[in-house]
């Protein structure tokens, strides 16, 4: 009687240990797989995410050092792709006075691509009342674009970056 019991007990302790190790490795393998899947999923979502969250796409911004308020009105709304266009850039000081005689440089890019603007836009005309005509803008792809202005007036320079999602 006791011999049979002992054999059974022996068998129970042997095989469960082997199974235990096996299950442990299966468990670890599964956990690793799930972790990998989660990481891949997250990476895919991040990569496919065209646009950073909470991007400020307003058309009116205070310049980086607070010197001016800059706002733009595009020629066509919504801003089209593959269409050469002009914008009106309006500049005023903090207390709402129009900025006159400013020297303005235009630049831009698609931050996710880094190819710069496909054209060389320029400010070509002062229209009065702080309004400047920006000519030769073109956006040749959908996505996140930035358009930057370097503004020099009265011996001071400031900079502003507008974001667009096209």
């Amino acid at each position, binding site marked *: 009687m006791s011999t049979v019991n002992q054999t059974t007990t022996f068998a129970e302790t042997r095989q469960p*240990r082997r199974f235990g190790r096996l299950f442990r490795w*299966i468990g670890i393998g599964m956990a690793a797989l799930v972790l990998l899947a989660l990481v891949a999923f997250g990476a895919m979502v991040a990569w*496919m995410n065209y646009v950073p969250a909470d991007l400020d796409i307003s058309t009116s911004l205070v310049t980086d050092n607070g010197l001016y308020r800059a706002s733009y009105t595009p020629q066509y709304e919504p801003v089209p792709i*593959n269409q050469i266009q002009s914008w009106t850039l309006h500049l005023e000081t903090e207390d709402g006075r129009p900025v006159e005689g400013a020297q303005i440089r235009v630049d831009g890019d698609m931050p996710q*691509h880094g190819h710069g603007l496909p054209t060389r836009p320029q400010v070509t005309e002062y229209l009065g009342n702080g309004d400047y005509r920006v000519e030769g803008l*073109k956006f040749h792809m959908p996505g996140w674009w930035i358009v930057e202005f370097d503004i020099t007036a009265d011996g001071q320079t400031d900079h502003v970056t507008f974001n667009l999602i096209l």
Partner: protein
Amino acid sequence: MMNGQQKQKLFIIISAAFLIIGLGLAGYLLWPRPTWSDEEVAQLRSLWLGSLPALPNDPTNRYATDPAAAALGQKLFFDPRFSSNGEVSCSTCHKPELSFQDGTPLAHGVGVTNRRTMPLVGVAYNPWLFWDGRKDSLWAQALGPLESPVEHGGDRTQYAHLIAQYYRAEYEAIFGPLPDLSGLPAQAGPGAGPEAKAAWEAMAPEEREAVTRIFANMGKAIAAYERQLLPGASRFDQYVEAVLANDTEAMQSLMTPDEVAGLRLFIGEANCTQCHNGPRLTDNHFHNTGVPAAPGLPEDVGRALGAPQVVADEFNCLSQYSDAEPEDCAELRYMITEGHELTRQFKPPTLRNVDDRPPYMHAGQLATLEEVLEHYNSAPEAPAGHSELEPLNLSEAELDQLAAFLRTLSGPVEAEPQWLEPPIVANSR
């Protein structure tokens, strides 16, 4: 503390849970999604023919919308007398039955060109013409092959005489009276062979201007004709309409799962819409995509040469032969004219009817759509300049799906039937 059996059970339960989660995630990632997200629908709509705006006016060509100019332009387009050997017309390479191109790597006029003939359906939407954009209007483009020594091989004075001889009435009804050409040499032109060039330089400035004016008007008539050639709806366009109408039954009957998968890659992972965007599936801009150099041909730097050429072009938007005001010439005035990035940049053609138009690329280097997709997948280095491509790591099956999608872009030419054939010429040869 748990004993062995309890630990065992715990492992089984935890492993099973992980297995279920893992399978669930894998299923979500890998199972083909039958529906499109809102953002994807917006992308499909942007590629859809219904998003193509009405053909804009061409301020450089005041005859662009004149039906009489289009009728004359069609006759000129199909008339082989406007060549050095009497055998080459525009239609020699721009064959109506082949989507207005010729199906060969290089073009064969009186000689052989170094580049592939480009398709003409919807061409009037292009701000830049030729692979390198060396012309900025449709009419200025037509004048290029006419005086090219390997294409039509003729010269503008020869052509002025032909207009006076065979098309006087039609020409004058549109453009006004022809000047007296009787004292002019039979052949004279700036880009022609040495004799014709010498004859051209011997002409008085007013004579050269009068002949050039006729030449420019020829181009404007041809452009008025080419504006009639518009893209018609393809199966892809019908599919997008079904998507916009939320008609899943129609969607399923219009495109197969493989074609839909190819479309999903096209607007997603394969990055095609970086250049092939908008309803003509081209951004009309210039890109270096590492296309291999064609063996035996001279070095081709694309836009790097095309940009200064269009700036200096005798017939550009700012020229005296253009009907436009300077403020209409924004494309020319604000273009990028130089820079290392222009090296080996070429203009992506429309992908509509791409399946009908092998071989591909600017000298027909890639014979099939499969070769093109292999090229984009492997992203080889450019022979010169810097390729914009990155390897895509798509599988063979995915490349096949992309090819299947591209085939859905074929559609008819949208034009009145008379524009799709040679015209009936009353007083022919």
